[in-house]
Structures are given as C-alpha cells and as structure tokens.
C-alpha cells in the first residue's frame, strides 16, 4: 500500500487543476486516470466557447500542471474500489495499485449521452447523423464531410438530445449544449463559408457571460438560422441525404428540410466511474451524479469526512466552472488536511 496525502480520481480538467493546487500547497498527491491519456473530454475539444480558446492550449497548460513534483500521475489506473479504513481512505485500481490517504477527491466527471437511445433520430442507422463530439473531431482535423467524403451543403444541429427528455430518464438541462451548438455552427461557417447552418431548439439557453453576444454574432456575421421546433423524424433521401421533420412552432407550421449532416447535441450524464464509485461510497444523488452536503455552502464536501467532490461528477458544468470548482475543492482539502495535523 502506498501512502499519499490525497488521492485524486480522474485526470480531466477538474482532477488536474485540483491536484496542481494541492501540490502547490505542499501536499503529496496521487492522480489516477483510467485511460491511457489524461484530459478526459478535453481530449477531443477543438475550441472552447464562448471565446474560441484553442483547446490544445488548455491541454498543454494542464499537462504542465501534472508535472509538479508533488504529483504522481498513474495512467490506465481505473479505480475499482474505494473504501474507508479507520481514519483513512483506501483506493484500489484495476492495474493493482493500492493507495491509502486521509483525503480522496472524486473528479471522475461525465459521459456523453448515447444517442442510439433516440432511435427516431437515426444515429447509428444513417451515416449522416453524427454527435456533437464527432463534429468537434471533424473541426479539429479541418475535415467537415459527409460519409461519402463530400462537402456538406447544409448542416442541422439539434439541441437537447438526451437532455430534458423524460423518455431517456434525464429531466435536466445539460447547460452547455445550446452555447456549444452556437460555437459549432460558427466554426462550421468559418471552415466552410458556403455551408448553410440551422439550429433546431426548444429553448435557447444563453445564460453565461458572452453567450448571448455569441448567439447574436452567429446570426449577424455567420448567417446561422434558428428554428424553434424539435426534430422528431429523420429519413434518408434517394440521393443519400437526410430529410428532417419538425414543426416550425413559431409559424405554427410543420417543416421539412434536406440536410447532409445532422449533428446531435448530446447531453451530459454521470460517467460510469462517477456512478460506480458514488454507489460504493454512498454519495450518489439524482441521476447518479455525486451529491455534496450543501449546494450553496459546502459544495465540495460530502457526508463522509475526507471524501470530496469536484467538477462534473456533481452535475453538468462548463470548463471555467469546472476549473473554479476544482480550485475550491483543493482549498477545502487543504484546510481539512491541516486540521488533521493540528
């Protein structure tokens, strides 16, 4: 068994940011990541809303932070068991690592909604239906194209896929996909100025700083079109394009349209690790997201002493929110560790 001051579970933005801040406070941190690569979902990001920050810059900054002398990073180290042993926490991993520490930070993040559950949208059935993550990857390599390798003439983005949807058991709003659709449509127009972009929405939620401005910019400078109506049918056309159908609710008229790509703005769910570890430790809340003891006043603490939370294991958050939450968690843990040594 290896000793540490803190075991941080999850090498995404939350885990790394918290680990780094703890390391700076002279705590010995073990950072365990289940994948070969760190960064979590930041791995696939191209740019970040609302300022089109290059995600690779964020990745290099995060990578730099993991190099701090007080951090030991373990890759391919999926956590299998978290248990309480007297005043300590024991964390065991799939590759046989075994740690003991007074504090654990859960930063095991989210997973994206599996769009195959929305069969009527044709994901996994028609090649032109892709997820927002796949579209982001296309942007990253500068190759927005249909399955046949052609340049799309028209792209539709559909909001709220797997969010706000009783049928899949997710009543909540994932918070980031509205603004992400605005970002993606602008990026699409930057790479393919002649493409037509349409966003289909039930509500447009532009609550963050500069979001509304970006929404406006997408209309003013990039001619992105917005249609208030939820697409409920997708069918292939004879020439291998896709026909989407919705009601244009503002004109109160059904609408159909042929597109080359339909991008599903998939929502945020608790990751498998979040759900499993939350269950083991007993901090699972609604939808398997982890539950802090007080949303308003102690959002990084749990009902267990020494077991802390940061980032999207709690709920859908943006990147800046996640990073801020990670720093807050590091502060809480620092105070906790100091209280033990007194």
């Amino acid at each position, binding site marked *: 068994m290896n000793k540490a001051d803190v075991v941080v579970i999850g090498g995404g933005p939350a885990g790394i940011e918290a680990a780094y801040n703890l390391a700076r406070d002279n705590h010995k941190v073990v950072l365990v990541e289940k994948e070969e690569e760190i960064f979590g979902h930041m791995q696939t990001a191209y740019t970040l809303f609302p300022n089109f920050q290059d995600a690779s810059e964020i990745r290099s900054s995060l990578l730099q932070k993991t190099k701090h002398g007080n951090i030991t990073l373990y890759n391919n180290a999926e956590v299998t068991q978290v248990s309480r042993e007297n005043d300590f926490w024991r964390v065991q991993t799939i590759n046989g690592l075994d740690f003991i520490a007074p504090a654990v930070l859960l930063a095991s993040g989210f997973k994206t909604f599996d769009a195959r559950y929305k069969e009527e949208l044709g994901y996994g059935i028609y090649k032109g239906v892709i997820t927002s993550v796949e579209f982001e990857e296309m942007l990253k390599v500068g190759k927005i194209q249909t399955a046949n390798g052609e340049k799309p003439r028209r792209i539709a983005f559909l909001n709220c896929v797997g969010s706000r949807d009783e*049928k899949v058991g997710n009543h909540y709003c994932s918070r980031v996909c509205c603004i992400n659709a605005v970002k993606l449509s602008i990026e699409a127009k930057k790479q393919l100025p002649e493409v037509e972009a349409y966003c289909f929405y039930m509500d447009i939620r532009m609550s963050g700083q500069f979001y509304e401005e970006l929404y406006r910019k997408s209309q003013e400078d990039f001619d992105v079109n917005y249609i208030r109506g939820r697409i409920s049918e997708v069918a292939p056309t004879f020439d291998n394009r896709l026909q989407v159908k919705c009601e244009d609710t503002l004109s109160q008229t059904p609408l159909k349209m042929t597109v080359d790509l339909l991008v599903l703005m998939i929502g945020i769910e608790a990751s498998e690790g979040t759900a499993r570890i939350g269950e083991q430790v007993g901090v699972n809340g609604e939808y398997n997201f982890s539950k802090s003891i007080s949303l308003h006043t102690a959002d990084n603490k749990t009902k267990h002493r020494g077991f802390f939370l940061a980032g999207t294991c709690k709920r859908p958050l943006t990147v800046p929110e996640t990073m801020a939450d990670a720093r807050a968690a590091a502060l809480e843990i620092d105070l906790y560790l100091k209280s033990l040594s007194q």
Partner: protein
Amino acid sequence: MKDLGFSISQSRTIDLDKSDLSAYRRVVEKVPSAKLCLMCGACTATCTARNHTDFNFRKVHLLFRRGQFEGLAEELDKCMLCGKCRLVCNRGVNTRAIIYNMRIILENLNYKSIK
C-alpha cells in the same frame, strides 16, 4: 372551414379575461401530463394524419388551453388516435388522451364538428 389563425393576418386577439379556461382544467384533471407540454412540436411533425390533413396537435392543444374553441372540433376529427405522437414526446405527455378528452368536452360544450 373555421379560421384557425393559419393566415398571416390574425383574425382575432385572445382575450384571456373573456376566455373559458375551466374546460382545460377538466382536461388536466383527466390527463395531468398535459401540464408538461413545452410546445416543441415534435408530436405535430411526426403525426400520421398529417399525410392527408393539416392537423396540428400542438396548436390545437394550445388553443384549447387558451379557451379558443372555435373550429377545434373539426380539427380534432382529423386525428386517428394512433398515438404515434406520444412516442416522440420528450415530456411524456399523453397526447392521445388529451385529444380524446378535448373531443368529449367540446361535444358537451356543443362545439360540433361539421362531419
């Protein structure tokens, strides 16, 4: 055919002070999920009756909710109660039951369809 407001020039104002809002309350009593509709139109877009009519469930539902009953009975006759709309509703609204109950209430209010 009654004017359902499909034309560009609106033929009337909805005066909520003078509208009968109690009929909708009876729908909600029977079908509580009616309250959950967020008017996304997914149901209207997938409607089977739309292949041969201009039936718009979402719109009829909203007009009924606002106490605007003129012409709705005829509109509701276009629905075959197949329930396809219910499958796509992301709010779990029992669309079919709403249509069924609106029909009965309109009949009791003596709004007869021409059929």
